[in-house]
C-alpha cells in the first residue's frame, strides 16, 4: 500500500479516485436496484405470461377454466396472485393427482422456469399476493419473536415443533420440516386450501421473516436431547417406552431368569 501511494503524487489523484469510486458505486447501485425491482414487483415479461398461458391451457384449464375463471371442479384463480400459483405448483400440490380431502404435497410437475411462467400468467389475471422478496427469506430475523408468533398463529395446526397435525374429516396441516422458506411465506400470504390467510396487515412481512427464522433455527439445531421421536409429544414417548423400553427390560428379565447352559 505504501508503494502505491508514493507513486500517486498528483494532488488531483485523490479527487479523481473519489469521483471514480462514486461513479462506480452509482452504476452498481442502479444495476442492483433495477434487478431488485424486477424481482419485487411481479415483473414478469410478456413472453413469461404467454408461455404460462400455454402451460395453463394444457395442464390446468380443465378444472380452473380457460381463463382461470374457475369451474365446478376448481376455484377461480383471478386475484389469487403469483404467490398462490408458485406455492401450489412448486410444492407439487397442483396439478392435483386425484380429488380428496385436500391436495397433497408431491414432487413438482414443472421445472422452475415453467413454474415462473405459470405464476406470471396467474398474476396477469388479477392483482394478488406477489412472490416474496428475497430479503424476507434469509432467516436473519428475530427467532424469539418468530417463535412467539408461530405458537400463537400456527402451532395449533402445525404443532409447536412444526411436525404437523390433524384437521377435520381427513384434512391435515402438514409438517413444515424441509419446506423451503419461499413456500412458507407464500402459504402465509395466500392461505392455501383450508389454511387461513395471514395478510401483511395481520402478520407484517418482518413478522413472517421472524417466523421463517424461527423454523430454520429449530430445524438446523435439532433436538438437544437426542432423537426427537417425530416431535409428536407424549404419544410417541408413551409408545416408545411401552415398545422399546419395556421390550428391552423384558428381554433382560428373560435372560436373568433363564438357566445358564
Amino acid at each position, binding site marked *: 500500500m505504501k508503494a502505491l501511494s508514493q507513486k500517486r503524487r498528483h494532488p488531483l489523484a485523490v479527487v479523481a479516485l473519489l469521483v471514480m469510486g462514486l461513479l462506480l458505486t452509482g452504476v452498481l447501485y442502479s444495476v442492483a436496484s433495477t434487478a431488485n425491482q424486477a424481482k419485487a414487483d411481479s415483473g414478469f415479461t410478456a413472453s413469461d405470461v404467454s408461455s404460462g398461458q400455454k402451460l395453463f391451457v394444457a395442464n390446468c384449464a380443465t378444472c380452473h377454466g380457460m381463463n382461470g375463471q374457475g369451474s365446478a371442479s376448481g376455484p377461480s384463480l383471478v386475484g389469487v396472485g403469483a404467490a398462490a400459483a408458485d406455492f401450489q405448483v412448486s410444492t407439487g400440490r397442483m396439478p392435483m393427482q386425484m380429488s380428496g380431502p385436500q391436495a397433497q404435497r408431491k414432487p413438482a410437475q414443472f421445472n422452475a422456469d415453467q413454474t415462473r411462467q405459470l405464476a406470471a400468467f396467474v398474476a396477469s389475471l388479477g392483482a394478488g399476493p406477489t412472490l416474496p422478496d428475497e430479503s424476507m427469506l434469509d432467516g436473519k430475523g428475530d427467532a424469539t419473536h418468530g417463535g412467539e408468533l408461530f405458537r400463537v398463529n400456527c402451532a395449533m395446526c402445525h404443532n409447536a415443533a412444526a411436525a404437523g397435525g390433524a*384437521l377435520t374429516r381427513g384434512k391435515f396441516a402438514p409438517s413444515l420440516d424441509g419446506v423451503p422458506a419461499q413456500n412458507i411465506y407464500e402459504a402465509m400470504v395466500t392461505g392455501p386450501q383450508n389454511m387461513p390467510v395471514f395478510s401483511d396487515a395481520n402478520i407484517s412481512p418482518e413478522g413472517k421473516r421472524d417466523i421463517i427464522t424461527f423454523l430454520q433455527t429449530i430445524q438446523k439445531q435439532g433436538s438437544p436431547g437426542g432423537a426427537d421421536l417425530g416431535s409428536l409429544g407424549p404419544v410417541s414417548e408413551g409408545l416408545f417406552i411401552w415398545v422399546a423400553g419395556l421390550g428391552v427390560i423384558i428381554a433382560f428379565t428373560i435372560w436373568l431368569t433363564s438357566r445358564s447352559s
Partner: protein
Amino acid sequence: MGNPSDGAPQQGGTVATAGQAGGRFEDPGIPPHRPRLADTDPKAAKRAERQVTALFVISVIGTVVFLISYFAIDLGNDSSIDTIRTQNILLGLSTAFAMLGIGTGIVHWAKALMPDHEVSEARHAVRTEEDRAAAVRIVDDIIEETGIKRRPLIRNTLIGALALAPLPALAVFGDLGPNANDKLRHTMWAPNAQTGKKVRLTRDPDGTPIRASDVTIGSAFHVIPEGLNDLKEGKLNEKAKAVVLLMRLNPEDLNISPGRESWSYNGIVAYSKICTHVGCPVALYEQQTHHLLCPCHQSTFDLTHECQVIFGPASRPLPQLPIEVDSDGYLVATSDFHEPVGPSYWEREYS
C-alpha cells in the same frame, strides 16, 4: 427347609374340584438338577469368571468416561445445542455402561457360577389359631379394663369430640383460594365503566389495534383486548378469559340469529377462543369449511351457524363477542361477552 418332593394333595375346600373321578396324578417332585457347563468343565467356569470381570471393567470405563465428559465439557449461557446434545449423549451412555456393566456382571456371575439348585421351603399359615385366640382374649381384656362398655357417657362424648376434631384441619385450608364470585362472568372486553370507552381488538401477542380493513376474507386474527399487555398483575388470568379469534367470511355465509344482527361487521365475526368443553384454545380455523376445531378433544364448531357444535365433546356454542368499528376505523368490542366463556360450571346460569 421343606421337603423338595412334598407332593401331598391339596387341602380340600368347598370348591368342587374336577378330575377326582379318575384320581389325581402323583406329583413327581422337583425335576433332577441338570449340571451347567461351568459345573462340570473348569475351563467354562474360568471363561465365565473372565466374562464377569470384563463386564465389571466395562463399568469402570463407563464411570471414567462420565467424569471426563462432565469436567471436560462446561455449559453456560452461550453453549450451543450441539454441545448440550453431545454432553447429554456422553453422560447418558457412560452411565448406561457403568450401570449395565455392574448389573449384567453380577447377574452373569449368579447364573453361571453360583449354585443353581432349586430349593423348596415350607409355607406357614399367615396366622395360627393359637395366636388368634390369644389376641381375642387380649382385646377383650383391654376393652374390659377401659370400661368403655360400662360407661356410655365417656364413649359418646369421645366419639363426639373425635368427630369434631378434624374440622379445624379443614378450616385451615380456607385461605387456599377465594370463593368463586362473579369473576368468571366478566372479562376485559367490558367497556370502561366510567368513560364508556370501548375496548379495541388488538393482535396477539404484539397488542397492536386492528382496522376492519385489515381483516380480509379468509383471514384469522388471534386477538387480545387492548391494554392486556400493560397489566402488571393477573395478566394471564385475564388473558385466559379474554382471548378471541377474529375471522372474516362472506356476509351471506353467516346465519345470524335474531338479536345478533349488530354483533358482526361486514362479515367480520369474533368468537371466544376458549373451548366450552374443558377450556383449551379452539384455534384451528379452516377457512374453506368455516369449521373451528379444538386440538385437545376435537370439538368442532360451525362458524356459519354461530359456532354451534357439530362434532366432539363440547355441548355449547362458543360465545360470540359483539364488535363494531370506532370512528378511527378500528375494531372495538361493543360490550362484554353475553355469557361466561370457557367450560361450564354449576353456577353458570346465575346472573
